């Protein structure tokens, strides 16, 4: 193992954990606030908290965007090669993704436990909504909790490396290209799903492929996790190509 990989990993993870602590703290506060709100207002006001996975996806995406270049600069100053610093970053992100998912799963579990039979207050998560059909009465088994943690971890890790991709892409692009790409992203985000939908409606083969992919993901959480990990691997490869020869310079 590389001599500096573990110190870099520990340093990066410690830094990430500080941000994650704030994030989890805010999430817990939000949940407590909702609980108090629902308890005070009484029955009849249905309230659902099911966006924790989405929130952690956004958190890790932003972390990927914000921290990628900073760490590369710092690690270069500390005499680390790009490959070692990027490996340390990926390791730290993977551990963080699992840790955040586990903590949020525990928080969700606690709220489900305390909510008990109060169906007007529902705390769930993405895994539960997709794979357990959002059954509000369901108490998750330990295995299902583990699946949920891994599902969220894979999804958030994918978002984190995607964040790195955008950060590195804009690092490498000239100002003109950065503007062009910046404008095209929201356009493509709208256009691509619409195009897929239209194309699959017009062409039976595409329609079958589309249904097959959705079916594959829907059949098991593990299929979705595998897809997330494969896509993450592809993005990591692209990220490496982007940063391999990038000029490491101080921020403007």
């Amino acid at each position, binding site marked *: 193992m590389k001599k500096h990989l573990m110190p870099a990993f520990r340093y990066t993870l410690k830094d990430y954990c500080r941000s994650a602590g704030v994030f989890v703290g805010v999430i817990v506060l939000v949940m407590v606030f909702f609980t108090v709100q629902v308890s005070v207002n009484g029955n009849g006001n249905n309230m659902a908290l099911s966006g924790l996975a989405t929130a952690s996806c956004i958190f890790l995406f932003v972390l990927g965007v914000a921290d990628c270049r900073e760490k590369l*600069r710092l690690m270069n100053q*500390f*005499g680390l090669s*790009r490959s070692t610093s990027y490996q340390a970053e990926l390791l730290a992100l993977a551990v963080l993704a699992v840790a955040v998912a586990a903590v949020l799963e525990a928080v969700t579990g606690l709220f489900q436990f305390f909510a008990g039979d109060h169906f007007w207050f529902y705390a769930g998560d993405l895994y539960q909504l997709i794979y357990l059909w959002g059954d509000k009465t369901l108490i998750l088994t330990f295995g299902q909790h583990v699946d949920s943690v891994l599902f969220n971890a894979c999804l958030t890790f994918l978002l984190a490396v995607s964040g790195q991709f955008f950060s590195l892409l804009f690092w490498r692009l000239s100002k003109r290209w950065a503007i062009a790409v910046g404008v095209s992203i929201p356009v493509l985000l709208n256009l691509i799903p619409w195009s897929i939908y239209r194309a699959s409606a017009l062409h039976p083969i595409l329609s079958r492929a589309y249904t097959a992919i959705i079916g594959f993901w829907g059949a098991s959480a593990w299929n979705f996790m595998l897809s997330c990990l494969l896509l993450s691997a592809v993005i990591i490869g692209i990220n490496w190509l982007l940063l391999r020869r990038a000029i490491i310079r*101080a921020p403007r």
Partner: protein
Amino acid sequence: MAIELRGVSKRFGGTQALNDVTMTFGENRIYGLLGNNGAGKSTLMNILSSRMYPDAGSVTVDGIPADTDAALGLLFLQGEKNLFPDTMKVRQAFDAVKLFYPEFDRVGAEDLAKQFGLNLKQKITNLSTGYGSIFQLVLGLCVNTPYLLLDEPVLGLDAQHRDLFYKLLLRKYADNPCTIVISTHLIAEVAGIIEHTVIIREGCILKDAPTEELTADVRTITGPTALLDGYLDGRTVLSESVIGGLKTACVQGTSGQPLPAGLELGRVNLQDYFISLMNEEDRK
């Protein structure tokens, strides 16, 4: 044991920053890397520390490719701009450096910070230009790597702090010899420190020799313009200046030769030599 560059070239758009540079920074010597603005000094430093890659050529540190952990761990670059995060404080940076450079003298760094009046609780990005330089110099002086690269080390430092830095640098070199490369425009200030001078111009190495050797064969000759013009005929003149009726010329290859009466011989310091050389290159 050396940093070796072989055929290193780097181009930025239409500018050839480095052009087929081949040179060696040997063991335990103090090098001065001199050149005008845009000569390629910082590019060279950045390539040595793997902050950028050359378009062609290779760089090795003690025989190891420069872009590896093993090579990068042997050197420390104090650059013009700092690469530390916005939120990091000086003390935190010292802690972090210790993680990656086990030889870092943490106690010594705090002592130097005190001598310079550097506040350990301040965020690095909030430091003034001078204190930003001091922060990096403190790291450089205490990191104890075999190679220390200083790019404009005294940028923004007042005269008192510059003097203190040069003294500390010499003390560090005496106590713990290492290879130090100083890239600077303040030639007169480092002239007494540097043992070996590398002059770079438009991406090419113009001179690469011991400092004494460079200036040994060059003299200034001062005297009445008409008399001096006659003497200079057929000699290698690096630069000339006229003030009133007196002319001063920087001449190569005059040592040991008798001067006509009325002309005065003087030694050339490194800065004058550099300026003369650049003027001569401008004329070409």
